[in-house]
Structures are given as structure tokens and as C-alpha cells.
């Protein structure tokens, strides 16, 4: 059981990395990866929201959706978005320091495709509560890894003499593609 959870985590983090293999959550990946410090915060916010998402999806799958399956998409979106908003308000009240650290990233990623993707994958694969949690943490760690790798490469490329045709987003997309090629090496990683 625990080894199952471990492989779900590893698989979500490396093999089926949300950004580099499934191409979900590309907007934060492209937009907030210029500096390592901000990339780390973005990653932390991602792990946080993904975990909440997984909890909410487990709850909805167990108690609500069996009665009204046609509400799946809309209930995922509404419940996750409002839950994150409530958590954000609570953090603001309880721990202003943590709120400042997470800053604008929390509301930014609430409506991200990676978030909805996680809820739908979790449902389709029939993950229970614990499995969903491992899946969410693995996906969050994978997003953080991709963000930090991208940010460290971009910080280095800032000093390079990039030709005009590749400046800006062009180079970011090419780096993303190269990272994605490298991550193909993890394909099929599983228990021997």
C-alpha cells in the first residue's frame, strides 16, 4: 500500500510530470519562471492548491457526485476556487507573513488547467483519499521541479548573447521543449 502511494507520487512528479509531459499549467511555467526565488514560491503555492484540490475532489467524489454526475466539471471549478479563496482569507487573518510570501500566486493558479486536470485525473483513475493526496503532492513537487529548473536555466540564459529571433518567449519555449525531451527518459519508470 505505502509503496503504491510512493509510486503514485514518483509517477506524478517525474514520469507524468504535469508541465513537461502532460503540458498542463504552462502559464505559470512560462510566466513566473524568470527568477528562482519567485519560481520556488510559485511551486509552493502550487503544492498547496493542488493538495486542497485533491481533498475537495475526494470529498465531492465520495459524497456529492454519485448523486449528480452531470455536475462534475462545474462543481470541481466552483468548489476548488471558493475553497482556495476561503483558505486565502483565513491565512491573511491568521498568518500575514505566510500570506505575503504566497502573495498573488494563490488566486492566480486557482483556475489553472493543472488544478482542474488534477481533479479530473484523480476521478478518472479512481484514486481514494490517500492516493489522491500522494498524487497531488507528487504533481506539485513535479511542477516545482520544472519551475525551478526553468528558472535556473533562464537566469543563466539572461547573460547569454541570444539571437534576436529567439529572444523572449521563443527561447523559453525552446528550453521547455528541451526539458521535455530530457524528461522522456523517465518514461515507463515503475517497479521492476
Amino acid at each position: 500500500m505505502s509503496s503504491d502511494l510512493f509510486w503514485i507520487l514518483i509517477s506524478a512528479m517525474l514520469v507524468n510530470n504535469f508541465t513537461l509531459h502532460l503540458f498542463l499549467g504552462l502559464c505559470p511555467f512560462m510566466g513566473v519562471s524568470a527568477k528562482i526565488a519567485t519560481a520556488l514560491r510559485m511551486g509552493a503555492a502550487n503544492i498547496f492548491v493542488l493538495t486542497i484540490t485533491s481533498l475537495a475532489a475526494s470529498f465531492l467524489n465520495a459524497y456529492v457526485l454519485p448523486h449528480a454526475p452531470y455536475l462534475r466539471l462545474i462543481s470541481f471549478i466552483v468548489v476548488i476556487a471558493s475553497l482556495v479563496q476561503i483558505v486565502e482569507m483565513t491565512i491573511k487573518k491568521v498568518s500575514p507573513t505566510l500570506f505575503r510570501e504566497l502573495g498573488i500566486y494563490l488566486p492566480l493558479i486557482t483556475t489553472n488547467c493543472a488544478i482542474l486536470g488534477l481533479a479530473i485525473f484523480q476521478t478518472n483513475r479512481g484514486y481514494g483519499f490517500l492516493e489522491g493526496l500522494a498524487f497531488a503532492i507528487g504533481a506539485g513537487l513535479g511542477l516545482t521541479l520544472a519551475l525551478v529548473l526553468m528558472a535556473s536555466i533562464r537566469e543563466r540564459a539572461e547573460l547569454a548573447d541570444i539571437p534576436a529571433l529567439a529572444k523572449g518567449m521563443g527561447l523559453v519555449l525552446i528550453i521547455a521543449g528541451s526539458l521535455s525531451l530530457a524528461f522522456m527518459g523517465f518514461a515507463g519508470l515503475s517497479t521492476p
Partner: protein
Amino acid sequence: MSETSHVGDLQLQLRASPHLKAPDSTPKIMWNVVGSLIPVIAAATWFFGPSALLVLLAATAGAVLTERAFGQRGSLGDGSAAITGLLLGLTLPPGVPLWIAFVGGAFGIGFGKLVFGGLGQNVFNPALLGRAFLQAAFPAALTTWPAATTEWARLRGDNFALPFTTPSVDVVTEATPLGLMKFEATPTDPWSLMIGATGGSLGETAGLLILLCGGYLALRNYLNWRIPVSIFVTVALFQGLLFAVDSARFASPLFALFSGGLILGAMYMATDMVTSPVTNAGAWIFGFGIGFLVILIRTWGGLPEGVMYAILLMNALVPFINRATQPKPYGSPGRAAKRGAREAEA
């Protein structure tokens, strides 16, 4: 830039640094690397016939022509594009259609190097990026390993296939030693791996020879010996551990060291001066990471060989490693002092 000052009878020359000069230059190092590859190329030709030379030529042509067309003026002379092409060629199977090898060379130089601003600025090893692209785009052509044949002059596959056509020549294929090990649990005798009497990519055979050629470069200090040494030690240790746990299922450390592209990758690709860490501490970390990932992918991954991906993944980590292992200036405040300063500021 020098002036002479007279202090009594003493003649003192005043000069700006650097005072110690090495005779090395980028072109000299690069052409030395090309030279050290000649025995490897000769061995590949000996084992795989004219196909080997054709594939190497096509990959090199792709790399060199792209560099000539889009690179800075005169950048061909430093030899780095030729190295990229040759190394890419050495990672390809002998029967691969030539146009695929050409595309790989062009992609490696174009997207692996020139978009980053040319030599010295790229993040990923261009040859391996080209190889990874080909592996993703033409998986069948890149995993067709022709069986050994006694007719030296015969082509080992449909090298002259037209672009985007199905190769028309039937070849007898065989699995590589790593594939045999992974899917059929049949180990190959390490001695035949060392001298090269096995199937595989052009540069996957004759481990001992590649070791010698790379050793020459290490002796001349053209590659950081810490990187291959740490890769070999890590692979031997981890594989030794697995072998000790279950010698029937896992390969021996000697097999792991000499099979696949490990030696070529460790000697020539991981040590690429541009895409490996600049600090020695970083080099040890880099090598350890590659060795660990190779074993991880080979043992638990879906692919029989993981050297290429291991090096590319660690390439992506190099900016991070460089930053983490940056030497501190003597007397600079430690972590505790820095935290104190930050708190005082807040």
C-alpha cells in the same frame, strides 16, 4: 603594455595580469578532441563497415552546415560543430537512414546551441539534444540494430532511404546487450563488450578504446577527470549493491560499466566544457547525479539505456549546481551571520 622601471641596476618589468599564459585555445582543444575521436571512428568503421562512415559524415554535415548557415562568422573554425556532429553520429545505430542523421545534426546545432547564442552559452549538450529529438521523432529507426555480418563492405541497413519513406532493405536485427539484459535477462560477457564484438550504436562498442582516447584528453587536462570518475564510481557502487542483492536479476557492475553508451557519454558528452559545472565540487555532484540516473533509468525505467537522458537531465541542473557550489570569498559572512543581518534589517 609594459614599461620598464629602473631601481638602481635592477630592471623591473611592470605588466598587467594575466602573468601566466597557457598555450591552449578553444580551437586547439576542440581539434584535439576531434583527433582523439579518430581511433573510435576507426573502430566503428572496422565493426560496422562503410555504413559507420556514412552515418558519421551525414551527422557531421548536418551540424557543420547549420553552423555555417546560421552561426557567427568564422565559428566553424573552432571545431565545436564538427565535434557535435561526430558525437551525434557515434550515438546512432549504423543502419539509420542518412537523412535522419543529417536532421539530428542540424537540430542539435540549431536548437541546442545557436538559439542560445552559440558556443559557450548553450545549456544542453547539442549532440545529445539532437539524439533525444531523433529518439522522440523516429523511435523505430533509432532502435533497429543490425546483426553482425561477415561481409565488411555491406551496408548495415537502408542508409540511402529517401526522407519520410519506409526503409526498403530488410536487415537481420539483433538486440543490444542492454536490451538482452533488460527484456530477456541474458547478460553479455563483459570482455566482448570491452573489445567491441557486440551490437549497438557506433560508439557503444570497444569500451576500452574509448576509455583510452578519453584518458588522453584527461591527461592533457582537456576534460575534467572528476566527472567520468564520479560517474563510473557511482554506477559501479549502485550496480554492485543491486548485484549483491539479487545477482540473477541484476547485471554485474562490470557489465553496467561497459555496456551501452556509458563510457562514451561519461568521457565525451558529460565532460563538455560548456554544459558541465565549472567548480570541482560541482563536477563530483554532476557525475554522481548522472551515475545515479543511469542506474535508475536502466533498472526501473521503460528504456534499456538511459545515459543520454541522464546527461541531459543533469545538464538542466548545471546552472543550479554552479550556483550552489560557488566558492565563498575568504572572510565573507556565514549563513548565521547573514540571517542575523536580515533580521536586523527587518
